[in-house]
């Protein structure tokens, strides 16, 4: 399948942080989840893709076009939602529609209204009176109303209650039913990603730790609970990270089936995305 977004060796250097040769790609009809601790470079990567900040080197192509040379063309087909709403407090959703309908040739007023209705966002109230959740829903409605092919969301679901989040995740799932649509979302609510993402890209300190299909991750990784004896016998390559407690060791392993075969009787549970992230980040201090 042709990729909607392709990032290759993206580099951006700051005094105290470097985004270091980040590469990944996003096929059509898929949701790619971006995970990583605060300051891992998720937002920086998204901003670089959008050319809000300028890359030092690397290549970004969207829909097969260069993200700087064909910037306007590309941006007509992207909807973006950040962690906050960047609309002026004195505007109402109606005002926003009259601005955006003049910006996007593909803007659909009816669609915008349908999303507002669905999210129960009032059309005539000014944003000053909106709650955080309402602003977020408005941002998502405005990002969808020009019928984009790619949605880029930066922490768009954080700070929302589970009911609203679920509603929004459902919208994303509907959105990618069309094979030409994709979603790139960063979130530290890993359970959300577990629910909807097809691929997971894990960023840590500005580097991509892995880029994997979510189902593979969940099927392969495991947490081995064992005593000192087994732990000592484990090969370095087998353990990604571990946690020591008074009852023994918890070890994140890359291939839980293999571990089960090699250590019959060992307790190996499936690992969640959150486990994987935590062990990777914390485990390196071993």
């Amino acid at each position: 399948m042709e990729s909607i977004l392709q990032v290759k060796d993206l580099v951006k250097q700051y005094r105290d942080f470097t985004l270091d040769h980040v590469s990944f790609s996003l096929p059509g009809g898929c949701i790619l989840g971006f995970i990583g601790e605060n300051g891992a470079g998720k937002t920086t990567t998204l901003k670089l893709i959008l050319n809000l900040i300028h890359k030092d080197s690397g290549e970004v192509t969207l829909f097969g076009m260069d993200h700087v040379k064909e910037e306007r063309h590309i941006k007509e087909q992207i909807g973006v939602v950040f962690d906050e709403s960047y609309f002026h407090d004195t505007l109402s959703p109606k005002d926003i529609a009259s601005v955006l309908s003049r910006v996007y040739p593909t803007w659909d007023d009816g669609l915008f209204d349908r999303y507002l209705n669905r999210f129960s966002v009032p059309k005539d109230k000014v944003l000053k009176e909106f709650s955080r959740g309402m602003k977020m829903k408005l941002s998502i409605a405005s990002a969808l109303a020009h019928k984009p092919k790619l949605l880029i969301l930066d922490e768009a679901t954080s700070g929302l209650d589970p009911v609203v989040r679920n509603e929004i995740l459902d919208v994303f799932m509907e959105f990618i039913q069309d094979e030409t649509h994709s979603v790139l979302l960063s979130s530290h609510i890993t359970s959300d990603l577990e629910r909807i993402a097809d691929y997971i890209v894990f960023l840590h300190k500005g580097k991509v730790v892995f880029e994997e299909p979510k189902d593979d991750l969940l099927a392969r990784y495991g947490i081995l609970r064992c005593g000192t004896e087994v732990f000592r016998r484990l090969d370095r390559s087998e353990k990604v990270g571990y946690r020591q407690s008074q009852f023994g060791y918890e070890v994140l392993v890359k291939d839980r089936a293999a571990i089960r075969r090699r250590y019959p009787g060992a307790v190996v549970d499936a690992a969640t995305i959150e486990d994987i992230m935590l062990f990777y980040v914390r485990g390196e201090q071993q």
Partner: protein
Amino acid sequence: MKGLLVKDLLVLRKYARTMVVFVLVYIVIFSMLDSVDVISGMVTLVLAMMSVATFSYDELAKWDRFGLTMPVSRNQVVASRYLVCLLFTLIGGVVTLVFRLGFGYFRNTGDPAESLLSSYVILSVAVLFLSLILPFLYKFGPERGRLFMILVFLLPSMLLLFFKDSVFGLFPSEETIEQALIFILPIALAALLLSFYISCRIYAKKEF
């Protein structure tokens, strides 16, 4: 780009209402005081300032970060801001002209040609002022940019005040000045063009 213009106008909506009241109050006060020149300058400048307020509003909302995810180029963002500023300055100029002509007509003072000339000059000065201030607003943001704005006004007036005795002798005759004044608008427009170019350069390098 039309969308960006609409956005600025919508954002200024409320502010504009306050400004209209403000301008009306000024007109009443200064009509009573008979100082037509002061009020003409005031109204034009107040309107020019209004466009500057769009920078503050945008910064408050962090608009640019979202604005630049839309299919508009950075140059277009700058261009639309310049257009909004020019639009308000023009409105200011027209309002003052109408006011001056009306004032002269009812009081039977002043000569329409003179009103026309002074509106022309005030408008040009406002455009010059915009050309100066806008690149600074782009470079330093509305907070520090505003400080600079005060300097733009204050420094020339102070200098003039301090050195008025020595300077006034150097001034050419009134006729020469009046003739030279015809060129002020072309000069102002050229300055605006240069200013636009500089602002585009500054904005292109910005990161959000």
